């Protein structure tokens, strides 16, 4: 009989302690190291941990979604403009989403990275994967794809019920807007200004463009170009009935942005005082806030149908008629 077996026979307490301090952690670690194969929305097959503990988000929209799913304790790093919710500002930074800092990402020892196809530099993603870290890449293009992205993320991060609930809520609110808008008899023409000098608007193939359509407006910048440019000459001809300007447009004050338009009283929107400045983040990020943006946009286009949204905090400035 060896010494240890003697000890075990003699001391059940010892045996229990052994189990607790040796076996359980081993099992726990093994469980933690457990991985499984998933397919990301781009169709790529990845090996990811079952329960990720160190996740780096490579885009602000993804950071928002992780918080929406209640899984923020997994996050160990995010990109520069991950500013919503406010708590995200404390996350360690890994560069901006178009200029990722590879060294900082690696130094955070992530077991999973979340990326967007449109924006994150492809070769940096490849290098991260070459160093053994799986990168889950999403590419939400249409509004429906935002829902599927939310569910896919939920499944990835072990938050499937929350994800499904969020998607359902978003879908419901979108449907409500859709139904209300269907009652409107007129589709006002709308010019959505994204940038000043040069004047840039959003085409069909953007979230903004889709929102405009769903909110019951007619996007004057509709067309194949994603972000077409306009001169004042073009705009005078287009004669928009409603003008919505995002606060990102060149960093100007809302009054200045509106003031530029008021130089042209021939434009219907100027005459009727329907020029509004809104917070940009609610109109271009594929997150829950996009639905809020939709509701506000619908209210701006059809104020008679959406009375409770007229004084929404998203609206930064408006002209008085």
């Amino acid at each position, binding site marked *: 009989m060896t010494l240890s077996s003697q000890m075990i026979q003699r001391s059940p307490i010892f045996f229990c302690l052994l189990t607790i301090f040796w076996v359980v952690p081993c099992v726990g670690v093994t469980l933690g190291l457990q991985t499984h194969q998933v397919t990301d929305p781009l169709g790529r097959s990845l090996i990811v941990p079952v329960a990720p503990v160190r996740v780096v988000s490579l885009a602000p929209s993804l950071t928002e979604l992780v918080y929406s799913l209640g899984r923020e304790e997994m996050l160990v790093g995010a990109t520069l403009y991950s500013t919503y919710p406010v708590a995200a500002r404390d996350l360690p930074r890994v560069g901006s989403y178009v200029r990722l800092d590879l*060294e900082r990402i690696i130094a955070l020892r992530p077991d999973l990275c979340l990326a967007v196809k449109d924006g994150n530099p*492809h070769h940096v993603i490849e290098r991260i994967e070459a160093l053994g870290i799986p990168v889950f890449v999403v590419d939400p293009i249409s509004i429906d794809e935002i829902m599927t992205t939310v569910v896919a993320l939920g499944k990835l991060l072990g938050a499937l019920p929350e994800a499904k609930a969020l998607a359902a809520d978003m879908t419901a609110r979108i449907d409500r807007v859709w139904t209300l808008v269907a009652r409107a008899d007129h589709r006002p023409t709308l010019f959505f200004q994204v940038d000043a000098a040069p004047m840039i608007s959003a085409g069909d193939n953007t979230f903004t463009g889709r929102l405009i359509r769903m909110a019951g407006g007619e996007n004057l910048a509709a067309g194949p170009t994603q972000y077409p440019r306009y001169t004042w000459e073009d705009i005078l001809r287009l004669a928009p009935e409603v003008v919505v300007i995002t606060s990102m447009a060149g960093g100007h004050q809302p009054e200045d942005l509106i003031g530029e338009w008021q130089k042209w009283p021939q434009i219907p929107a100027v005459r009727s005082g329907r020029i509004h400045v809104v917070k940009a983040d609610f109109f271009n990020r594929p997150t829950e806030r996009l639905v809020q943006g939709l509701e506000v946009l619908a209210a701006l286009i059809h104020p008679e149908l959406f009375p409770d949204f007229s004084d929404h905090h998203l609206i930064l400035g408006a002209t008085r008629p």
Partner: protein
Amino acid sequence: MSEQLTGGKHFGLATRLFLLCAVLLFILAVAILLGLGAGSSGIDLREAWGALLGQGEAVEQTIVRQIRLPRVILAGSVGATLALGGLVFQALLRNPLAEPYILGVSGGAAVGAICGMFLGLTPFPGVSLAAFGGSMLVLVLIILLAGGQAGFRKDSLLLGGVMMNAFCGAVIMFLLAVSHSAQVQQVLFWLMGDLSMITAERLPTLLLILPCFGIILALARPMNLLLLGGESASVLGVNVRLISLLLLATTSFMVSIVVSLSGLVGFVGLVIPHIFRLILGSDHRLLIPACILGGASYLIACDLLARLLSVGGELPVGIITALIGAPLFVFLLWRSGR
């Protein structure tokens, strides 16, 4: 000081060269160590040294060997090549304002790279090859323009180069004006010099610059004579036309290679040769090794600064070299005027 001329000078030059190389190699070693030991994720020289040798944590090893090491090697190679390129062109064109981009290499490479980016090519090998192709095309055009009869008249070369750069500049402005904002950012980073894209597999391309260094080193003495002017150099036995062509082609080739990997890093080729000329005099047998080793250390240090100062995603190294290089150059001008 009046030293005995017989034997004294001979040992003087060889000894000076040896001492120079020893000092500069030491500085280079320090620069490399610092470059490996510090970065945007923190500074720890001991850990970095260990990581290089294969000890320590896996993360640290990955960072040092696969992220920082290729970058330091690239920075050193680019710095050495640009400094040497500036030196050669300053001798060839007998113009202190000459720098490695002056003969159209930068314009051609930029147009090639931007076209590559617009076509959606990957940084390696796509955009790289496009940049290299662009600069070689411009070089051939300039040689054809300036070739002429009685050998390379430096004024024709200079004029041709400046013209090509101006033309390419206009093309670049046009391409930028019609591009999307995301592309514009990518282009701007390339134009400012960007060492962050390098991976270990791409490093062997840099071996191509070594034979170029060798050729230029071998032509050190004729380069001294070129400063006398074409005719006087001829009379002293230098085949001016052949040597000029060889220097031009070799230098443009090696500068094109590094530009295709790193974008347009400016001010290195202009400032480093002048600094060493102030310290060492004009003998190219000393200046060539000095520019190679000194240029390498300088850019490794600048790149280190760029990485340490990075806030929202890295600073292009070209900004650091410009911020340091421009005032330094003004200072040098002031000093040499005294």
